[in-house]
């Protein structure tokens, strides 16, 4: 009997000492993938969006509020990507810990140097983001910055796991560096090539890998392609010898094919988020797929 009581007491003492698993809610699968790389078995992550969705237009489903209710940490991409639904989810969750400005809320764009920051803000310019282009996750080096922010915040919330998070961060960074060499090597032969994209999604990607985006199929961000604009794009493609039209696979490729058929360019439909295509279950696999698709588009 004495033994049982002792064992129970020991177990009781041991349980609180056991590190708890952090519940993390991210708005995108890319952030989810990074959190899983850093947190590994110390985190349980739920992404509101799926990789094949347009993150600009997620809905504030009440079920998301229930997920957010249980979250220790809520991570957003930031730069107004989630402006259409985040406040409803945070307010509806009744979870004070994850409200903006609290320790349980992280804006992953905080330390990112944004591109495409508009000089002028006006709705006549389309769906522009005041703080800059939010698609920064497509530059792998930006994800090192994001990973650092995530590791720091996870460590603040779970100090007992700090060393594990730091080790995982180092592993993540090392893998990014190794893969960067591989990705750069594959895309190096095409550096300097001009691209047409559907939306302003590829700014960070093209900057990192040396492409030049000379136009989009959308006349303005968020405005669907019009026939007259597409004819201008056809001329642009011909004049600049553009070889590929890089179409985010969350958008239909009808407009891209229209231009391609009239200009001789090749349409490359690529995923832009983890889970956005078969075999892109984590961030590295996503970038592998994008690099493979883009390089493939240039090959005859």
């Amino acid at each position, binding site marked *: 009997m004495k033994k049982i009581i002792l064992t129970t007491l020991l177990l009781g003492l041991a349980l609180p000492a056991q590190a708890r698993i952090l519940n993390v809610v991210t708005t995108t699968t890319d952030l989810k993938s990074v959190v899983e790389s850093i947190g590994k078995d110390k985190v349980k992550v739920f992404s509101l969006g799926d990789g094949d969705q347009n993150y600009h237009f997620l809905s504030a489903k009440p079920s998301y509020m*229930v997920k957010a209710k249980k979250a220790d940490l809520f991570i957003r991409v930031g730069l107004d990507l989630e402006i259409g639904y985040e406040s409803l989810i945070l307010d509806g969750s009744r979870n004070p810990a994850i409200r903006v400005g609290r320790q349980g809320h992280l804006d992953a764009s905080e330390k990112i140097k944004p591109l495409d920051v508009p000089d002028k803000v006006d*709705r006549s310019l389309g769906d522009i983001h005041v703080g800059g282009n939010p698609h920064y996750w497509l530059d792998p080096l930006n994800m090192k910055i994001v990973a650092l922010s995530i590791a720091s915040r996870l460590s603040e919330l779970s100090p007992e796991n700090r060393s594990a998070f730091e080790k995982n961060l180092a592993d993540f960074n090392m893998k990014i560096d190794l893969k960067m060499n591989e990705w750069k090597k594959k895309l190096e032969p095409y550096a300097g090539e001009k691209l047409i994209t559907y939306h302003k999604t590829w700014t960070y990607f093209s900057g990192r890998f040396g492409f030049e985006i000379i136009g989009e199929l959308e006349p303005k961000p968020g405005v669907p392609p019009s026939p007259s604009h597409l004819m201008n794009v056809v001329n642009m493609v011909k004049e600049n010898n553009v070889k590929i039209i890089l179409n985010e696979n969350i958008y239909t490729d009808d407009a891209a094919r229209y231009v391609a058929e009239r200009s001789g360019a090749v349409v490359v439909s690529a995923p832009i988020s983890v889970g956005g295509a078969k075999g892109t279950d984590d961030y590295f696999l996503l970038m592998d797929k994008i690099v493979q698709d883009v390089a493939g588009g240039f090959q005859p």
Partner: protein
Amino acid sequence: MKNFLICIFVILFMCPQAKADELSELKSMFQQMQVQMSEMAGRIEQLEREKQTQAAKDKQEINQLQAQVEKLEQSETKESKSFFSTLNPQVSVLGDFIYKIDENGGEGDNDFNMREVELAFSANVDTWARGDVVVAIENEDGTEVALEEAYLTLLETPIENLQGKFGKFRPFFGKVNQMHLHQLPWSDYPLAVQNFLGEEGWSEHGVALNYLIPNPADIYSELTIGGFNSGSTVLGGDEENETVYTAHWKNFFDITDETSFELGTSFLTGENGNGDGARTYLSGVDVTLNTELLKDRRTTSHTEVLFNTHEQAPGDDIHSWGMFTSLEQQLTNRWWAFGRYDFSQTPTASEVDTRAYSTGLTFAQSEYVFWRAMFTRTDNETSDDDNTVWLQMDFSIGPHKPHAYR
């Protein structure tokens, strides 16, 4: 011969001596040149080093200046952002413009009509609360300014999962009543809502507390109870100073990632002004099914049923009911088709049935502008049947806050 031999000897002996001197001189010159070259190389190296140092210094200076500029820019942005976000609420303007063609047209029909302009202000009040004010400028019998909503939402309370709403707002009763005109998927409110809650729904001064009910299945289950003034059309009179009590229970289920189901029940009661404590009891059920099996092809089905008991003299209660069911189908990412069936009795005359059949198309020019055409056939039991065509355009200016999921 002897002299000749001596000459040869002298020549042979003296020449190497002269050559050796010359070589020595050349050697010395060469060494001097080597020293000079080495000095010059050193000088060049030194100059290059100086140049590199200067370039590094310049670079460092440029970097420092750039950092200073960035810092200044950031602080400026932060200052301006904090200024705007702290002192200025988000201000939006929403316009609703219609042309209603009605064969039995009343005032405002068969004419252009800027039916309503809403001015919406919204901001966090402090750490715990948010404030919203909506002023409606309506064009009905002349221009009329009305306080449509003005309320404080207490986002955090000492009781976990509990939030509160205080002020004038649309009470939680059914789903459509909480929607403003521009949020409706049709051009008007359904007949049952108009008859039992008010022509443009019910907005009243009061208090509501809503509680998210914890449950092991992690279903969104929210219970809201409220108390409101009775001074509105809901209970048939505004003389009473009695309170109208409301309750709403909302349950939301994610069936799959693409399909969701919502079930809500509502109830309200209050004295109706018929004397002797006569009360009105209104209860309702709302059911919504949303599915998007194909991308940009969302289907929304929504039904509400309302049951009303209106006490008059003892034993002379009026029981009436109404319902509507609607189906919206997204055709492309910007086009929607919809249909709605309405049935409603009136709260004080259950024998009068009205039925209406509506169908229409909505084109979303962008997130901020939509165009709509709707046709309604209304069968009235006590008056002429009616055919109505609505042409509608709505727009919004400013950072209008996001709409709740429907």
